[in-house]
């Protein structure tokens, strides 16, 4: 039984690793940290694998751990970030064609809370309530942080403000929680 569970976990991790690193990257803006966060999240999922699989949606569970793990590590990192030196090279390759670089760079410039709101609300299509619950804040905070973050992104990326904001707000309402 343990062998099967381990094999299931291995397959699950191999399959979802890129997606979770990308989620962590979107949240942290740093690939070294992203891999740390993703690995820590998978380790936590493995530690409770029986419960995770029983819960019914391991991927959603893991996403939540990634977000929480990012919060946890971010709190630690705030002290360490001023120290000189870089994280060791993780061997990760990032290819950033220009149009994408601009958006990722703008995302990185947001504060961690705003970045998390944008990622959860507009990339993972979470509802405002789900985003608030995941981040441990109120729906009002999610709305205000989203509004500020979108304004910053519009300014930084020269996005077509009104039309684009409307379009993704409408879209996320339609597909909320479905994808």
């Amino acid at each position, binding site marked *: 039984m343990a062998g099967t569970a381990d094999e299931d976990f291995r397959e699950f991790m191999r*399959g979802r690793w890129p997606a979770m*690193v990308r989620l962590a990257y979107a949240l942290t803006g740093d690939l070294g940290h992203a891999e740390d966060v993703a690995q820590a999240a998978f380790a936590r999922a493995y530690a409770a694998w029986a419960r995770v699989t029983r819960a019914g949606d391991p991927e959603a569970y893991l996403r939540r751990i990634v977000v929480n793990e990012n919060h946890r590590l971010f709190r630690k990192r705030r002290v360490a970030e001023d120290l000189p030196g870089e994280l060791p090279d993780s061997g990760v390759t990032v290819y950033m064609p220009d149009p994408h670089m601009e958006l990722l760079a703008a995302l990185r410039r947001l504060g961690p809370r705003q970045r998390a709101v944008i990622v959860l609300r507009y990339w993972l299509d979470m509802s405002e309530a789900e985003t608030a619950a995941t981040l441990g804040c109120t729906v009002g905070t999610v709305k205000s942080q989203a509004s500020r973050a979108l304004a910053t992104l519009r300014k930084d990326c020269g996005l077509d403000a009104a039309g684009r904001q409307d379009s993704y707000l409408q879209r996320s309402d339609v597909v909320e929680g479905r994808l």
Partner: protein
Amino acid sequence: MSDLRTELDAALRTVVPGEAPVEAAMRRGRRLRLRRRAGAVAGAVAVAVFVTVGYPALTRQSAPAPPEQHQRIAVTDEPAGPGSPPGAVAHGKVGGASWEVDVDNPNVTGSSGQGNTALPQCYSARGSIRGADGTVYSSGLSVSGCGLTYPTGGAPVVFTGTESATNGVAIGAVAPDVTYLTLRLADGQELKLIPVTAYRARLVAYVVPLSNPVVGAKAVLANGQYLAAVPFNQPGKTASFGLWALPGEHVPPTDSVVLTMGTTPDIWSQKVTAYEGPWGTCWVIGRADPSCVPAGGLKDTSIIGHSGDGLAMWGSAADYIGRILVTLEGGASVLEVPRAQVGDEQLWAFTLAKGQKAVSLKGYDSFGKLIWTGKLPL
């Protein structure tokens, strides 16, 4: 104009992580688990020490059992010879039990054949054991199946298989230019399969223990060349062959990805795993037999296969496809189809719950433009 999600999606797809540190995460997870249990274990240890010291006999009894010795089961395979009944394909032995495989006459009214030129469609396999007094008993092997198909696209043979409780049975339709096939079993035994003609079809058959599956095969051609294959082996199933390659020909590296865990209520109702390797590309959906194709170049977006009820569908996606969306009957639900890079291929699959029906399957580029529409089974 595309929306923010699409742009984020496209931007984040440019992030290419390294290989998943699976074993490191598992080690870390085990440490976490141990730490969590440490408190509870501390109390239990005191009791365990007492029990161990006080009752050494119990500890001896709970010592791990020696590893199970695997007994080698001899397997043989002979083509049906002159004088065999019509439809006989092959016979042989698995250990002390004999087996024989034959096909149904496709020309008999009421059989599942399709006219007098059709390939036999159905087969059966029976096993027997001869006692010391000469009495013949059933060995428990009695299976039948249908769905024989002729090889196409350069494949030397197409096997169709089924399983009894302990054995895998496979029958294969063989291309005209194949002289014979050899199969290598996991324990190193080799079987030579010589095609016989039964009801005008060239066929081979074999029976092997499920515990000793086929791990390699060669098809020797009339011109002296041969094609080799490494089958995909799902535990408890007969080997599935997808890719037959010439010596030295490139075969895909081994990779596997769970596309869906099949645990989301109402949608993605079954676990789907995609495997790529020297066998080609295989999708394993729930407990069904694997669906394998030669692959090694599925660069287009297409539906590769689907279940008879249309509730499961699988295929490949071109690199430039951003998302594949499936719309369910009623139009209320539009779901993103799970997709992943598996080896060199982008593969996708979805499984719906009973009562659901897909009415459209569409692929979009990273800017949200519709660029592919799948033709759904009726």
